[in-house]
């Protein structure tokens, strides 16, 4: 982790450790049926060995994805500063966004079925610019609601016109 901007003075907060579990469940939910279906189709159409090979191959792909997601989850971070919110993410392409509180148009909190089962939620910030997408996945539900209210009130007090 070389040369991340302003690492020294920023106190990064991290998503919940349950996020990794959520990502693992999501990967498994895709990988296992895909491997089963691929294996069975190839096994009945071709030979049993081919079916086994394809099934195992898909499982390996799923495991690689899991490694990748683990690194991605580890890269997420956000920091509430005095006037703006910073979000960093990404492994291959690293990104950091700075979003002034006054520029936030609205904030939504979403939770998919897997996230919900683990009590997680994603907070998403929207500005008037379509390009500035900042989201923080895998926050504890209570934390997410708190963050949303906090951002909303900060946004209100610092709101600026277009």
């Amino acid at each position: 982790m070389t040369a991340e901007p302003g690492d020294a003075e920023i106190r990064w907060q991290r998503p919940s450790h349950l996020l990794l579990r959520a990502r693992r469940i999501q990967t498994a939910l895709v990988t296992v049926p895909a491997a089963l279906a691929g294996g069975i189709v190839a096994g009945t159409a071709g030979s049993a060995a081919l079916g086994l090979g394809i099934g195992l191959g898909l499982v390996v792909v799923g495991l690689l994805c899991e490694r990748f997601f683990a690194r991605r989850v580890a890269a997420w971070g956000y920091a509430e500063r005095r006037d703006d919110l910073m979000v960093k993410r990404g492994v291959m392409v690293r990104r950091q966004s700075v979003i002034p509180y006054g520029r936030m148009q609205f904030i939504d909190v979403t939770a998919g079925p897997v996230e919900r089962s683990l009590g997680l939620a994603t907070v998403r910030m929207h500005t008037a610019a379509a390009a500035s997408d900042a989201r923080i996945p895998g926050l504890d539900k209570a934390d997410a609601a708190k963050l949303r209210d906090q951002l909303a009130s900060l946004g209100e007090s610092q709101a600026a016109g277009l």
Partner: protein
Amino acid sequence: MTAPPPHPVPPAPPVPPADMAAWHRLHPLSPLIRTGRHLVALGILVLLLIFANHSGNNDDFISDIVVVGIVLIAGVISWLVTRWQVADGVLRIETGLIRRQSLRFPLSQVQAIDVVQTGLARVFGLAELRLRMAGADSSGGRLACLPLADAERLREQLLAMGHAAARPAGAAGPASAPAPPRPERVLFRVQSERLAGAIILSRPGAYAGTAIAVVILVIALTGKPGIIVPFLVFGFGIVTSVWRQFNTEFGTVVAEAPDGLRLRSGLVQTAAETIRPGRVQAVRLVEPLLWRAFGWCRLEVDVAGPRQRRENRSEGQRLRALIPVGSRADADRMLGELLTAPPRPTHPAPAGARVKTLLSYHFLAWAGDDRYVVASRGRICRKTTWVPLEKVQSIRWVQGPWQRRLGLATIRLDVAGRRVTASIQDRGVAEANELLGELPDLARAARSRGLVS
């Protein structure tokens, strides 16, 4: 038209003239013009049908007449039930026979008012008034159609009332005194020959030229002109796109008016709109390869609020060209008009970036002061984007794997809308980090300054 009001002497005080508070109808010819496009299409269809079967199959003809009749009657009914009124600083439009709609447009919220004339409307001297609100959906108010003079005057009055309503009550002193309409100072006028040349040398022009060359080549080689018939559709598409560009940008005139820059353009369909300097989100200077040989360039602005997307989608995504084609001197003058003392992109990218950006390195540069950031990029077409720090919505720091190896990073500044991002590309990591630290503070300072003034 309900008795066109006599020309009001001393023009346009912000108090609504008594006659505006009454309910008005649109011009009786409006249905004809609103359905004009369909009418023309139908007319062509009818002619084609008549020519297609020389015997004159009467059934088809009659059915077409019936369709035209229904469209016209629907238009007339819509005209009959539509009326508008200005009262208490609000423009109200009531319309609809079965699904009755009452639209309210508070004038203090109006971003801009455009006067648009379609081809048919020009024949009858009518014009359409479009109100642009700040909201995200483009269905602003439309008053179609009014006589041109009335439309212009109504526009002035509505804008004046909007200003008066927007200003706090205490400040309605000398500032709100009815300013006599100053003669507009023309800042730029596009040269028609140059516009035609520029379009030929631009990308759609190049497509058209290639297509024509291919057609000639194919005919010369095969000797059978009939072979190109299946491809006529593509040819038609190219021609219409070139024509559309010429049509919208022909005769562009930019003038300085009390409420901002007045922009008028169009050959068949003319449009007039006002750009308030405070609403400019970004300015972009585009210099394609072939144009540079002539010292030409294009200056575009990005303005808050939706562009009308009724005409077509691609139009909505393009920026408004203040200078469709002009010399660098024109562009510099206009730039000075839009921004105060804009910086020039003077810091070239670090030498380390040369490996990654072999084809675009020569155009990568940026500069910034406490008000603006300017960044240029591009391979063969140089695009220089100015963004007022006051308008920046978010700042992003991005580093791809290739950039990480070279020790580079890119800073992007986003402004409202989905079209423009100023991208300070491929800077050294230390510089980019420093920028990410500084720019938010500079932007905040610029914002608070903007709030005060």
